[in-house]
């Protein structure tokens, strides 16, 4: 637990510094003015949430391929962190959109696909909480995570594929240099926090799984039905 705690602490420190620079030192955006400062928290959240779902996808393939519960724990942990970040992402986007677009929400391709991503990975977590059999849970949550990941490239490319209200991809060339430091620092901050949180969650879920697998009360298979006695023998 030492290195994940350190990772989380470093992440929060980086995020605090990045947000201080973003809020008080970086100049306001030319057209969005102060509202542009929301990008220092919104954009890194978006990057890292997509990264979390990529990790969940790779772990889902690993768990289906090997059947090992370590991969299964990683699917659950990275999906959970990704869902929390996506919820934040949608909130930050809405708060940014109100003064900029004049509405909290628009059924724009990027926004809609992001909301779908949130719901689909939420379903992965819901499935996990509903299934008690660890082997069945491993298979079904891995399949659900792979299916949910189909939406991630759609989220990423939506601004290219469709005529989206959302801005297109930015790159260091299209963004003022004064925005680079707070954006990158915040991205590393959220990344470190996410790595730490995923590591702690993997350990917790792994311990829970070990407990479930060693539980003596659980029968290895369903008991046979005794039809003469009119119930379960």
């Amino acid at each position, binding site marked *: *637990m030492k290195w994940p705690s350190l990772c*989380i602490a470093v992440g*929060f420190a980086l*995020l605090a510094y990045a*947000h201080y620079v973003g*809020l008080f030192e*970086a*100049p*306001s*955006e*030319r*057209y*969005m*003015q*102060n*509202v*542009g*400062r*929301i*990008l220092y*928290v*919104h954009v890194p*959240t978006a990057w890292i949430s997509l990264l979390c779902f990529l990790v969940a996808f790779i772990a889902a393939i690993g768990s289906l391929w090997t059947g090992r519960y370590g991969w299964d724990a990683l699917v659950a942990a990275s999906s959970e962190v990704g869902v*929390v970040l996506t*919820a*934040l992402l949608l*909130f*930050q986007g809405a*708060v*940014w959109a*109100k*003064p*900029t*677009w*004049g*509405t909290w929400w628009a059924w724009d391709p990027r926004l809609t696909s992001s909301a779908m991503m949130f719901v689909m990975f939420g379903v992965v977590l819901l499935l996990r909480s509903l299934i008690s059999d660890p082997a069945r849970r491993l298979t079904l949550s891995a399949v659900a995570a792979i299916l949910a990941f189909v939406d991630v490239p759609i989220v990423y490319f939506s601004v290219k594929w469709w005529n989206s*209200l*959302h*801005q*297109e991809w*930015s790159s260091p060339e*299209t*963004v*003022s*240099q*004064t*925005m680079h430091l707070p954006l990158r620092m915040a991205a590393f901050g959220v990344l470190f*926090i996410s790595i730490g*949180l995923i590591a*702690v*969650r993997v*350990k*917790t879920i792994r*311990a*829970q799984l070990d*407990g479930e697998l060693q539980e003596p009360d659980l029968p290895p298979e369903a008991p046979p039905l005794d039809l003469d006695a009119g119930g379960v023998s």
Partner: protein
Amino acid sequence: VRAWIFAALFLSSPALAEPSGEESNSGEVSAESDLSIESGEENSVRRPLPPLSEDGLTEAGDEEVDATPGDATASTNGGGSVEADAGYETTATGPSYADGMAGKIEDGRRFVWAAYGVSWAVLILFTLSVIRRWQAQEKSEQSS
């Protein structure tokens, strides 16, 4: 009578209202541009704005503009705004946009604080929840 009713409905149609995003942005977006410099090094270089085009979409050319070279104002290529150009910002004394064009967003601090505040609160609460769940799991392992 039908013709008069039709004409009255047509004239009162919202489609004839001024095409702008100002109505929905009222309170947050000002059509009047108060293009003030917030930071950066000022100098006296003056740069004429392009003349107003027929469609009224380009900036008015009859205003006084101060240009500040360097990275005085950060800019992105999106959010409904235009792509970054030379990296200067302007100061104008008069209206810099034609009627119906939204200018800069003013008074957006409350949105910024809301986004940052909620993000920090959620991240801290989620971190505490993760750590507490880990501690609970460790305790249950020790007790068993």
